């Protein structure tokens, strides 16, 4: 490869300069991004100290709570945990509700988006082109626009405090459909489907056993985004979830250290599971022509 490219020394020098600058910028960015997260984790090993105002009200009017790292970080960790387990029963309820909402809605989003994208790519039906344009149009309309209408709908039919009202809308996710369609168009070939048909496979079976594995990179990418979006969603839930028993994690909120653990460990697990398959080149397909 290097024989037929430019071997000019000046160009090489420029390359090295660029290379060094890219490394410096990326490493600096990485440090900048990871620093606050590391600091947040360090918070767990701190001890709570309350600063009480002096006898003459010198420093501040109110008492102030600060966190210090002491000589016994692990003892403080244990102390923090015990105090948390005593005080924050609600957090477990929130965790449970969040899982009930997030896991099904993520699965719905991925499965039905893949199904829709497949229908647009593989079959010849009359409204196909119109539907394709329609997806692009509705993709630009975020759900938050119609919050008032959604709220009125939920109130009218007495569906307040139902977690299903957060799960079912996830079936229609135009942005995910657009992404999957983009990926499928690059990798799809009708021959696979036709040969499967010749072997006697039904349409649903073809989709589940051939198309879904083919879509794996796109699904992995969108799984992370869908999971995180649903997990941290607080705008719609704060309107329709009013009782404490059905509140999701972002609604319960709280500034405790353990709340932060509960809210970021599940997304990290999903990322760890999916990152291997994340889209690395939309051109990777199962049949090359």
């Amino acid at each position: 490869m290097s024989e037929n490219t430019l071997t000019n020394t000046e160009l090489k020098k420029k390359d090295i300069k660029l290379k060094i600058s890219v490394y410096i910028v990326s490493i600096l960015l990485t440090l900048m991004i990871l620093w606050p997260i590391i600091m947040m984790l360090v918070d767990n090993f701190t001890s709570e100290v309350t600063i009480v105002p002096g006898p003459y009200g010198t420093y501040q009017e109110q008492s102030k709570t600060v966190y210090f790292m002491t000589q016994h970080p692990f003892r403080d960790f244990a102390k923090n945990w015990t105090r948390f387990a005593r005080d924050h029963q609600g957090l477990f309820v929130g965790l449970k509700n969040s899982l009930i909402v997030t896991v099904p809605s993520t699965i719905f989003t991925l499965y039905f988006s893949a199904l829709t994208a497949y229908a647009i790519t593989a079959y010849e039906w009359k409204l196909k082109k119109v539907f394709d344009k329609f997806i692009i149009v509705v993709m630009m309309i975020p759900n938050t626009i119609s919050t008032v209408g959604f709220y009125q709908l939920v109130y009218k039919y007495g569906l307040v405090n139902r977690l299903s009202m957060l799960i079912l809308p996830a079936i229609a996710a135009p942005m995910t459909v657009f992404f999957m369609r983009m990926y499928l168009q690059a990798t799809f070939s009708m021959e696979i489907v036709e040969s499967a048909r010749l072997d006697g496979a039904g349409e649903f079976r073809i989709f589940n056993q051939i198309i879904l594995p083919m879509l794996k990179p796109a699904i992995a990418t969108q799984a992370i985004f869908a999971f995180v979006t649903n997990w941290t969603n607080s705008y719609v839930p704060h309107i329709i979830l009013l009782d404490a028993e059905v509140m999701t994690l972002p609604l319960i909120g709280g500034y405790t250290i353990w709340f932060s653990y509960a809210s970021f460990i599940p997304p990290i697990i999903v990322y760890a599971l999916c990152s291997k398959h994340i889209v690395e080149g939309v051109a990777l397909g199962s049949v090359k022509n």
Partner: protein
Amino acid sequence: MSKNNLTKRYTKWGYIFVLPFVIAFLVFHFRPLINTFYYAFCYLKHAGNTNPEFLPSIGQPLFKNFKEIFSAVSFRDALINTFFFFIASAVPEWLLAFWLAATITDRRLKIKGRTLFKTAFFFPKLVQGTTVSVGGHLLSSIATFVSLTAVALAMDGFGIEFEDLEFFMSVRFFIIILTVFMHFGITFIYVIAGITGIPVEVFEAAEIDGANRIQTFFRVTIPCMKPMLFFITVVSVVDGLGMNEIPSYFGAYDTLRRNLTLMIYLNNQAFMGSYAYDKASAASLILLSMFVAIAAVVYYFLLYDKDEARLKKLQRAERKAMKKGA
């Protein structure tokens, strides 16, 4: 003929497969949207009120809600703030993401650790639920940096006064920084996915023809990743104009409305205290029209195929001529 029959036999599956999407869309997205349109021309106030009254039927002007919104100072501030935050955070984010992605994926440079960087950049999105604590640490470190710079400048001068740095200590600057911090990884991942989706042969051909990096980027990379570029733009616009979480961390009752965005305005109108659903609907319509306008411009520049449109026009004209001839 048998081939035609075969394709016809499978046509129904196309309809069956899009059915769940269409039903869910009509019930949970389309109907609320239509209702929002209707409520914008109704009287609908007070908490839990589900009985809209059409404005002309109760003797009010049709565009009353819109008029009220446009005459409110807070709406104007929210509009200005939203666009300010959107542009100020999207421009540096895009420049950095495209530059980094283009150089990191460059085959000639052979940069290692791409996966590591990608994971690191994406991490803030994963811990998004804890923005309160992560953001606090981020802001404190930035504030320390800024104040140290300020002290250094104050000692040495350079013609820069302390007041010039005021912006870097303000809420707006922190909102921009936090937004870039949260959103950079998403843009970066999508840009990398778009660039690696381009066949290697295209870059090789450009290289052999003697194109330098900048030419390759603007003449090869960007035109080849147009659909992905459109997707990234839409994500960016939807997230940028719809931002409400990060600004709302900085307090709900800022009397100077420094952190008021359109989404917060909408939320305040509908659900936090005012319960003016009609005004909120009108505000969402205005927001919607902005989304559509921006997206239409982007669509025209990125996805609209001018040659294909011209071809279709010619074909149509030909068909007409044929019909006339017949």
